[in-house]
C-alpha cells in the first residue's frame, strides 16, 4: 500500500486518535494549571471524535449517525469548556491562583 493512499485506510485514523489521546493524557497529568488541564481534555475529546468519524466512514451502514454523534460531542464539549473556564475564573477570584497544588482546601 502506497503512503499516498493512507487516507483510505481505517487504521491511519485510529492511530492518529490514539496518539492524540495519549498526548491529552500526558498533558492532563503534567499540567500545573487548571487552564492547561482543560486544553489537554479538549485533545482527548478530539481524539474520541476522530474515532467516531473514522468508524462512521469505514464500517457503519448509516453514515449520518456518526456525524450527528460528533455534533453532539461538539455541543457538550463547548458547554464543558464554558463551565470549566467560569469555574477557573471563580477559583482565581477566591484564591488568586489557578495552580493545582495551591488549591488544597479540601485535602484530607
Amino acid at each position, binding site marked *: 500500500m502506497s503512503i499516498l493512499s493512507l*487516507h483510505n485506510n481505517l487504521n491511519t485514523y485510529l492511530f492518529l486518535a490514539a496518539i492524540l489521546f495519549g498526548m491529552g493524557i*500526558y498533558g492532563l497529568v503534567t*499540567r500545573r494549571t487548571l487552564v492547561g488541564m482543560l486544553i489537554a481534555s479538549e485533545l482527548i475529546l478530539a481524539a474520541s471524535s*476522530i474515532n467516531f468519524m473514522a468508524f462512521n466512514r469505514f464500517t457503519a451502514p448509516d453514515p449520518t449517525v456518526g*456525524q*450527528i454523534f460528533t455534533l453532539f460531542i461538539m455541543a457538550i464539549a463547548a458547554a464543558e*469548556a464554558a463551565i470549566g473556564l467560569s469555574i*477557573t475564573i471563580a477559583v482565581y477570584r477566591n484564591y488568586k491562583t489557578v495552580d493545582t497544588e495551591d488549591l488544597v482546601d479540601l485535602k484530607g
Partner: protein
Amino acid sequence: MNPTVATGAMGFLTGDGLAGYADAIAGFVFLIMLAITVIGGLIACNAERLVCAVSGLALCFVGVAAIYYYLNSPFVAMMQMLIYVGAVCITIAFAIMLAAPEDSQKNGPAGPLSGPLAFITAGLVTMGLIGLAVNTTFAVLPKLNMGGVKLIGAELLTSYSMVFELVSIVLLIAIIGSLVIARHGRSK
C-alpha cells in the same frame, strides 16, 4: 477502497490520467494535515506558556477539521472550524488573560505522576489503543446512503429530535450556569 474523497476534493479534474494525479495530491495533502494535527497536539501539551498551548490547540483543531473532510463529512469539518477553532480556543484565550498571569506561574514538575511516569502512562495507553486497532478485524457493513447534509438534518429532527432538544437545554443551562458562577463576587 473508495475514491469519493478524491473526487470530492479534486472534482474538477476528470480526465483518466488526471484522476491518478488528483489522488496523489489528495494523499499528499492528507499527510501534511496529519503532521499539522500531531505537531499542534504536541505544542498543546508541551508548551511552557499557556498562550502557545492554545495556539497549538487551534492548529491541532484545524488539522482535525481537514481530517473530517477526508472522512466524507464537510459539514462536520465546518462545524469543527466554527465551534472549536472559532469559539472554544478564543474562550480559553480569554480565560488565560483573565485568570492565569504568566509571572506568577511556577515551574517544575506538578506532582509525583509527572515527568517520565506521565510519559510512560501516556505511551502505554497509546500503545494499547494502537494494538487494539491493529489486532481487531472490524466488520464492514454495506452503506445505506452517502450521509449528506440533507440526511443529517432530517435525522436530527426525526430520529434524534429528543437528543437535539436535550442538548439545547444542556447548552442553555451551561450558559446561564457559567454566567452565574463567573459573576459571583464581581459586584464587590
